[in-house]
C-alpha cells in the first residue's frame, strides 16, 4: 500500500506496528459513513492491507522474539477490529435512521385492496342457521321445489278439501293436476321419513312459493327452513328447549320468547314461537302491529297421521317439526323493512352485509 514509507525499514517492528495501528484508528475515527469504514477495513485488514503486509515481516523476526511480536500483532489487530465493529454499529444506526426518515409515507392514504364481493344476507343467515342446527346434531337435506300434492298436502294430514289448502295459495303447473310448486318446506318431512329410519334429525332449507301479490311483506316466492326430529320419547318440552337454544344462538342474546298455541294440520299440539318485539320492547309499534310480539316460526309435535303415512309407528316414536321463514328472520336480525330488497339485488343493499 502507498502509505508504507521506505524509511520504515529502519524502524523496529514494534514501532511500525504502533504507527499503523494509530493511523488505522485515526482513519476509522474519520470515516463518517459505512462505505468509508469499509474502505478503512480493506486498507488495513484487507488481504492487501497495511496490517497484512506487516505480518509478512514476521518471518524476518528472530525466533526468540516471535512469541512476543506475535502477541503484539494480535493485540494491535484486535484493537483495530474492535474499533471497526464499534464504529460500524454506530454508523449503521445512523445510516438506518437517515434511511427510515427518508422513507416516511402517508400511512392514512387508502389501502390498495383486492376487490371483495358480498354474500347475500339470506345466504348468510341460512348458513348461520345450518351451523347452529349442525352443532345440535341436525343434518341438512334437500327436496324438490316442483312437488306433488301428495308431499305438499296429503302426506301432511291435509287431504283434499281441507280448508288449510286454501290458506296457502298454491301455484299449480302444466305438469299435471297433482304437480305444484311447493308451498312449504314441510314437503321434505315425509320424503325423509320414507328414506331414513329413526332416529332422524334433519333440517331442510329451501325455496317455497305462494300465489300472492307482491308487497312490502309478501313475495310470491320466499325461503323456509324446515326442521324434523324423530326418536323415542321426544316431547314438546324438548321442542321448546331446542328452539330456545336456536333463537339464543341466532340472535346472540336472550330474547323474551313465548310459545303460543296455533294450528297446523301436520303437527299436534302446534305452536307459534313469538319473540317480544325488539323494536319497541313489547310496548307495541308499527313493526309488530301494536301486538308487542313478533311471530318467528311455527312448530309442533308431528301428528301421528304423518308418522303413519311415512311408515313409522307413532306408538313407538314421536317427534317434533318446525318451520321458519328465512326472510322473516333476516328482516328481524338486520332490521330490514321491505322483503322486496332481497330480490331487487341492488348492490347498495347487498354491500351492507
Amino acid at each position, binding site marked *: 500500500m502507498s502509505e508504507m514509507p521506505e524509511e520504515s525499514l529502519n524502524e523496529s517492528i514494534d514501532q511500525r506496528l504502533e504507527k499503523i495501528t494509530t493511523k488505522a484508528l485515526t482513519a476509522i475515527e474519520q470515516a463518517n459513513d459505512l462505505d468509508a469504514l469499509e474502505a478503512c477495513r480493506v486498507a488495513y485488514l484487507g488481504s492487501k492491507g497495511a496490517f497484512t503486509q506487516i505480518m509478512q515481516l514476521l518471518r524476518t523476526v528472530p525466533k526468540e522474539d516471535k512469541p512476543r511480536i506475535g502477541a503484539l500483532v494480535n493485540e494491535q489487530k484486535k484493537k483495530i477490529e474492535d474499533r471497526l465493529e464499534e464504529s460500524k454499529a454506530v454508523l449503521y444506526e445512523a445510516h438506518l435512521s437517515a434511511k427510515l426518515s427518508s422513507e416516511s409515507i402517508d400511512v392514512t392514504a387508502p*389501502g*390498495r385492496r*383486492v*376487490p371483495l*364481493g358480498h354474500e*347475500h344476507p*339470506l*345466504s348468510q343467515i341460512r348458513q348461520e342457521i*345450518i351451523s347452529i342446527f*349442525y352443532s*345440535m*346434531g341436525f*343434518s341438512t337435506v334437500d327436496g*324438490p321445489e316442483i312437488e*306433488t300434492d301428495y308431499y305438499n298436502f296429503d*302426506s301432511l294430514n291435509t287431504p283434499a*278439501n281441507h*280448508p*288449510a289448502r286454501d*290458506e296457502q295459495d298454491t*301455484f*299449480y303447473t*302444466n305438469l299435471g293436476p297433482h304437480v305444484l*310448486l311447493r308451498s312449504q318446506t314441510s314437503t321434505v318431512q315425509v*320424503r325423509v321419513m320414507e328414506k331414513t329410519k329413526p*332416529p332422524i334429525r334433519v333440517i331442510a*332449507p329451501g*325455496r317455497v*312459493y305462494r*300465489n300472492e*301479490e307482491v308487497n312490502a311483506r309478501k313475495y*310470491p316466492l320466499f325461503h323456509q327452513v324446515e326442521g324434523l326430529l324423530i*326418536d323415542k*320419547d321426544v*316431547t*314438546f*318440552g*324438548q321442542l321448546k*328447549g*331446542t328452539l*330456545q337454544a336456536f333463537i339464543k344462538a341466532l340472535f346472540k342474546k336472550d330474547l323474551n320468547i*313465548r310459545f*303460543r*298455541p*296455533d*294450528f297446523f294440520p301436520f303437527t*299436534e*299440539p302446534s305452536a*307459534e314461537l313469538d319473540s317480544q318485539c325488539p323494536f319497541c320492547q313489547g310496548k307495541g309499534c308499527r313493526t309488530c*302491529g301494536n*301486538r308487542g310480539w313478533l311471530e318467528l316460526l311455527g312448530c309442533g*309435535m308431528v*301428528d*301421528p297421521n304423518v308418522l303413519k303415512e311415512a311408515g313409522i309407528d307413532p306408538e313407538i316414536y*314421536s317427534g317434533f317439526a318446525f318451520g321458519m321463514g328465512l326472510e322473516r328472520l333476516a328482516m328481524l336480525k338486520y332490521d330490514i323493512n321491505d322483503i322486496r330488497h332481497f*330480490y331487487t*339485488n*341492488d*348492490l347498495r343493499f*347487498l354491500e351492507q352485509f
Partner: protein
Amino acid sequence: MKLSFDWLSEFVDLEGLSAAQVAEKLTMGAFEVEEVTPVGAEITGPLVLGEILEINPHPNASKIRLTKTRVAPGAEPLEIVCGAANIEVGHRIAVALDGACVVNRHDGSKLEIKISTIRGVKSNGMLCSAAELGIATDDTTGEGIYILNDLTGDRPLGTDIRDILDLKNDYILHVEPRSNRGDALCVAGLAREVAALFNRKLKTQTHGLDEFGKALDQNLTGQIKAQSQADECPYFSLRTINGIKIGKSPAYIAKRLEAMGLRTVNNVVDITNYVMHELGQPLHAYDLEKITGNTLTARFAREGEKITTLDGKERSLTPEVLVIADGDTAVGIAGIMGSKDSEISQQSSSIVLEAAAFDQATVRKGSRLLGLSSDASLRFERGVDRVQTAIASERACYLIAKHCAGDDAQLAIGDLQQAGDNKAQSKTVDLRLKQIDRILGISLDSQKIEALLTPLGFGVQDLGQQSGQATLRVSIPSFRQSDITREIDLIEEICRLNGYDKIAAIMPSASMPAEAADTFVSRVKKTLTSSGLSEAWLSSLVPENEPGIDHDRVVSVLNPLSKDHQLLRQSLIPGLLKAVAYNQDRGRKDVWMFEAGRVYERVPSASSQQAASQAQGNLKGHTGSRERQLIAAAVTGEKSRGLEAPLKPDYYLTKGLVENLLEHNDINLAKIAFRRVSDLYPWLHPHRAALVTLNRPAKPKKLDKAISQSDIQRQDPSPYDHLDENITLGYVGEVHPRYKDQVGLRDNAWVFELDLAKLELERKPGKFKEIPNTPEVLRDLTCDFENQETEHQAVCAVIIKAGGPHLKTADLVSVFKSDRLSLTYRMTFQNPAETLTNDQVESSIQSIRKDLSDKLKATFRA
C-alpha cells in the same frame, strides 16, 4: 272474526276484566287476537239529560243563541251557548258538561268540553248533536241538536245519557279464525273459551217463543215443508213467518253489525246475520211469495242449471253443487248464498227462515267451483254444530217476531218443519294418562284433566287400568266432534288449557352425528366473493316472454297472479343481466354479480315414464321435471383498486374467474377444455363464447326411440342440445350486443354459467407429491401461424403432448398479431430424479417444434 267485547259480555261474566286482558288470554289459548280496536270515539261524562228552559239571543252575535238549561232536578239552570237552529223551549237534550269528551262532528276525533267564553258570554257546556254522541241519524249536516223527548220517558234530568242511549264503550277484538274450529267463529263459541280460560260462568240465554203465544200456529196454512234428498244435508229446517214488516233494524243490532264492519240491509236479513255471528249458525230467509209450491228441497244441482245469486251474478251449476230448490228452480246454493229471485224486499210480508246443516266438504267444493264464498260458507266449511241448528232458528224467529212484526198484528209463526235429524251423537275418545307425559313431557293426574276439560263441555270418566294403562274416557260435546276425534287431539286440548308455558324446556337427550351441508356450494360462493363478485338471489319465476326458453321443456304456472311470474326459469343469466341493468340505471358502473340457484325443466315424456316405472309405482313423488343447481355470474364495468390501475373485465377475465373457480374447488384444469360455441343462447356473442367441457370426446347420448323422434321433429335448436352433453359443464362468453341493447345494459358485460352437480362430480382433492430438489429449466418458444384462427388450446395441447415427461408447464406469455399470429410460450422443464441436461431440454423442444409445424403449420424464427 271480529268479536264485540260488549256482545261477549252478554254470554259470559266479564266483571272486572278489560278487553286487553281477554285478548291476551284468548291469544295464549289458541285464538290469536291480532288487534283490539275501540268502537267509535270514546265518550265520557259528565254527559247528562237536560231541559231547555229559555232561549235568548246572544248579545254579541246573530247566529248563535244563549240558552238556560237545567241539568238536574230543581237545580239552577246553566247558561249554555248554542248555534243550532232546531232547539225549542221544552226540548230534552244531551248536555256535555265541563270535562266531558264527545265526538268532534267535523272529523270524528275526540272533543273535550270545557267551560269557555264565546263572544263575551260564558258557556257552561255544550248541547250535543247526534253526531257528537257518535249516533248515526238522518241529519246529514250533523248540525241539529239531538232531541230526546221521545226517548227518555220519565227519566229525571241529570241522568247519564250513556245509559239512556246505550253509549257504552265497546271494543272489537280481531280474532284470527282457526280452520279446525268452526264452533268458535261466533260470540257464543268464544264466550265458552273465555269462560274456560278465566274459569268464569257462562250466562244462560232465554228467548222463548212462548212470548208470542197467540201468534204461534202449528198448522199455519201455506207454510213451507222441508225435504232433503242428499246425505250432504243431514238436517234441514224451515219456519214460515207471516205478518212481517220490512224496515230498519233496531239500533242495537245495527250498531253491532256495523261495528263488525257488516253492511246493514233490513231488519230480517240483519237478524239472520246477527244470529249467525252470535251462535255460529248460518241462516237464510226467503220471501214466501216468491217460492213456488209448498216444499223446499235440498238436492244436488242439475248439470247446467242456472241461478242468479244475491250478488246479481248468473251462475251455471254442476252436479257437485248442493242447492235448495222449490218446485222446479234452485232458490239458493246450499250454505253459500241465496238467489236474487227469492230475496227479501221492502214489500215482503211473509218469510221462510232456513236453518240447516250442510256437509263441510260439499260446501267447500261448491264454493271453490263457483268462486263464491260468504260468511255462511266460511262457517259451514269449518263445521257447524248441527245440534244448535234449531236453537239458532228459534233465536232468529224470536228476534224477527219481536222487531219485525207488522203494525196490523197479523204476526203468525208456523211450526218448525224439519227433515233429517239434528240430535247429538255420543262420541268418546280414550286417553291414556301416560301419553300426555310421553308427548308433552309433563304429567297430569285425572283430577287435573277433568278440571281442564269440563268447562268446555267435555265429560270425563275414569276407566282405571285398561291394557295396563291408566285411561280416561272423554265424551266429546257435539260442537267439538269434528276437531276432536283422536287421543292426540285431546292431548293438544289439555296442553293449551293447561298453558304451553307450564311445560319446561329441555334439550333432546341423545345427540347424533350430523352431515355438514352444501360445503361445495359455500366454497364456490367464497371463491367468487373473494374475486369481487356479490351474490344475488333472483326470482325463479320469470315472465312469459323470458328469452332463451325452450318451450318444449318449460314448466309453467297455470294460475299466476302476475305476468312476471309465469314460467320457471331455465337459466340464471337473464335475471342476472336484469339486475345488472337495474344497478347501472342507478349510476353504478362496476356490477359484478353471481347467483347459485336452481333451474327447472320438464323432462321429455318418454324418459319421464321410464323414471316413473323405475320408481316402481312410486307415482306419489313423480313430477316429470328436473331441477339443477347452477352457478352463474355477470360482470361489467371496471373495478377500481384505489391508486392502482382498475381491473377491467373482458372475456379473458371472465374465463379466468371460471378457471379460478374450478381450480379453487379441486377440479384439475388439465381436465377442462373450452370449445367455441355460437348458437347456445341469444345473450351470447357468437364469436366470443365457449362451452366449458371436459377435455374428452362426448359420449353419444343414450337416446331412447321416443326422444330421438321428438328431437328429429324439433325445428328450433335448443340450448339443451349442448347442455345435455355429458361433458358440458357450462359456458362463458361476452353478452351479445343485440341482447345488451334489448335489456338496456349501458356497458358490455360478460357471463358464465356452470352446472354445480356436474362440477362436483369432477372434484378430486389433491394428494401430496414430493417437492423436487432438482432445478427447473425455463425456455421461451415463439411460434408463428399463418392461420390467424389458430387457437391457443390446440397449440398448447400439441406442446404438452410433444414435450415429453419432463415438461411441467407451458404458459402463453405473449400474443402478437400482424400478417401472422405469433404466440410465445414459456415452458418449464424439470426431472425430479436428476438435473436435466441442456441436450435433454433441447431434444424436447425439437420434438415440440416438429409436431407444431407438422400439425399446425407453425414456423419458427431463428
